[in-house]
């Protein structure tokens, strides 16, 4: 999956399933702060696991930070760094 739009769609789908946001993931801007939107630390763990499954990657230790999962854009940048594209 190298198409940025498809990758973004997959991230939104994972957020809809795992982030437990009180708003629709489809309505979030790419730069919107997911924690401010209501994603808890606990939910972010489940988001990380789902992302790893979806993109068949393992986030290295230096990416296991809160900021990496802060927005759709930051997640996409991290995934892109790992899978290329």
């Amino acid at each position, binding site marked *: 999956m190298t198409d940025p739009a498809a990758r973004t769609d997959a991230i939104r789908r994972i957020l809809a399933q795992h*982030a*437990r*946001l*009180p708003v629709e993931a489809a309505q979030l801007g790419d730069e919107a*702060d997911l*924690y*401010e939107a*209501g*994603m*808890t*630390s*606990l*939910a972010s*763990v*489940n988001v*990380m*696991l789902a992302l*790893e499954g979806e993109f068949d990657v*393992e*986030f290295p*230790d230096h990416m*296991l*930070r*809160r*900021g990496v999962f*802060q927005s759709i854009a930051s997640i996409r940048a991290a995934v892109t760094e790992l899978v290329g594209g």
Partner: protein
Amino acid sequence: MTRAAVLPALRAGAYGRHPLHAEDRVWVERNCYADVFVELLHALGLEPRAMLGHTAAIDFTGDGFTFFKPSHDELRDLYGMDVQELNVWRTPLEHALEHLGAGRFIATEADAFWLPDTAGTDYRQQPVKTTIVLNAVDVDARRAGYFHNAGYFELEGEDFDRTFAADARPLPLYAELVRIDRLVRRPADALRHLARERLAVHAARAPRENPVRRWGARFALDLPELQARGLPHYHRWAFSTTRQVGAAMELLAAHLEWLAEDAADAPLREAAAAFARVSTGAKAFILKAARAVHHGRPLDAAPLFDEMAAAWDDGMARLPGGARAVPA
């Protein structure tokens, strides 16, 4: 009287959190009691970073780390805030109207099931004991304002009814009265001086054997069971272990940086940096261990625990009053 508030001007939507709860922190929510007192002090115009030295004494006790919180002595000595158990013999609302009306907060156990600020975790999902600090109640409007975790919130309607229900539980909730009629607003340098003295006391209470190293040894033994019991169990375990120590170390670093703000105090800054490494290490670990539990894969966490344990030793050796030698 059907309405009462200690700080009537507070509004949930307009509330500005203390920077300790900014979204760029490693851990935004630590534990309910410590978090709620950070925000209560902040709302009163006091400096919550002064009372964080107690985090130096956090210890590993086998199935968790000690649930760190500021002692009543700490709050009284630093700020003149008086916290004592409230003898709960009337209905929760009667107590609230009495004490909020007289300018006293009530810190009380509550069920997060009825606290709307926990949407996404517990709200309307599962009963969970937590601590809130009541600031305002309006019986006719069925509305209340309360501090919880990292902020100030409001609840209403059914949430109000259930939070203040007099007969919902077999035993009354544990509650504390928070008196602020003798608050002491110390100048920053005087507060630092006092906090520095107290830090030495807290450092002397710190565990004699490295708690992070003991935790790592226990984790290696516990991992198979954590994997067998799955993620929901893991999340509860991680709250009691990884989050408590990671959050305590971040708060300790913030305390030391605040103490060192007005002085060229290299050891304090170096200690802060060391404890911050424990905190960020714990953040990486909470995610790595979640992965190991989720997939049932082995995890050699020894290198990460070694790093965190060495950082704890390094930080402790630099604390004032600490008896430990700086490691080579």
